């Protein structure tokens, strides 16, 4: 029976990981497929993403695109990469910052966790009205932020990520990098498909940033 791909991929968190990494390429019984190299789903779509995110001249969060049908096929077909390329690229589905409002800034999860924690601690001071209770979504948002926060000092993270801005990386893309314990540049490219056409340009600065972030995580 097939073995789950990517067991070896390690995360800083404790416990077993089944995250797939390109190194393991899915199942063992698909060695032929593995040789071909199963592409990350984003890869076939990246060129469109990059062009379009640039077009508005604003900092956009990565403009991802997902498709139920494609996602389903990804694992089964060794030629998934081919078939995706054959398809006409769909238009971008989201530019969140633009959609939300002009005064929108992406937040790293650790930043959000800090703010929400501060609000929770000061709730008694902030409101004299006992009728005001923090909603369920607040508690869930806070719990989520605290659960996945990686850094104690968001400013330090911003400082580390800062140099990437010179390479045209947007705030949203920076947040995506900061929100996960990414260990390799390939992982970053899988998470942020809008980097696709800038891979060669971004590889070295990303390597430096990831190394710095890893140090910061270990120090925390």
């Amino acid at each position, binding site marked *: 029976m097939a073995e*789950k791909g990517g067991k070896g991929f390690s995360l800083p968190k404790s416990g077993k990981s089944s995250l797939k990494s390109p190194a393991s390429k899915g199942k063992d019984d698909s060695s032929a497929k593995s040789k071909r190299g199963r592409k990350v789903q984003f890869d076939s779509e990246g060129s469109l993403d990059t062009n379009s995110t640039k077009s508005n001249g604003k900092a956009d969060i990565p403009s991802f695109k997902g498709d139920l049908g494609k996602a389903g096929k990804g694992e089964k077909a060794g030629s998934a990469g081919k078939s995706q390329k054959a398809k006409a690229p769909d238009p971008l589905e989201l530019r969140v910052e633009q959609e939300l409002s002009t005064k929108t800034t992406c937040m790293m999860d650790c930043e959000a966790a800090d703010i929400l924690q501060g609000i929770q601690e000061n709730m008694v001071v902030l409101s004299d009205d006992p009728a005001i209770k*923090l909603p369920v979504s607040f508690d869930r948002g806070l719990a989520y932020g605290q659960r996945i926060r990686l850094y104690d000092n968001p400013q330090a993270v911003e400082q580390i990520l800062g140099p990437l801005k010179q390479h045209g990386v947007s705030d949203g893309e920076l947040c995506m990098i900061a929100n996960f314990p990414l260990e390799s540049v390939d992982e970053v490219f899988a998470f942020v498909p809008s980097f696709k056409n800038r891979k060669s340009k971004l590889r070295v600065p990303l390597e430096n940033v990831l190394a710095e972030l890893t140090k910061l995580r270990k120090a925390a």
Partner: protein
Amino acid sequence: MFFHIVLERNMQLHPRHFGRDLREKLVSKLMKDVEGTCSGRHGFIVAITGIESVGKGLIRDGTGFVTFPVKYQCVVFRPFKGEILEAVVTMVNKMGFFAEAGPVQIFVSNHLIPDDMEFQSGDVPNYTTSDGSVKIQKESEVRLKIIGTRVDATEIFCIGTIKDDFLGVISDPGTNA
């Protein structure tokens, strides 16, 4: 993903609240009215972090209520297609599993779970690989990608997949115990 945004809302206030505490009353009412709400455009309004401005009030004809335009800053949680989230599994059944990431609920259909993971019924329903090395059950943490969203009046419901590179179980409760 969390965002910090500025929103505007017209707040109606009864004349009995007028006085020195008018601003506080407006803020209290704003918090009561908007925190915890959800819209397709902005996502979940998790918390108000500040008031930018309170405009001049306008008396409503025949009621005495006064409408104040209030600009406020808030933290919102807005999932988007293609976003990767780390979620906690809340329920597992043969159709797939449900997970939560912050205020957002995500359903991962069994078609979007790797083919080598099979549903196991029992006291603790789960999806397991044939060698039992990877298990998705209640309380497992999974890294998933959102591939679709549906917006309700009070919640955003997402469809996710773990069938892609770097996605899958991060930790399961059994190994942490």
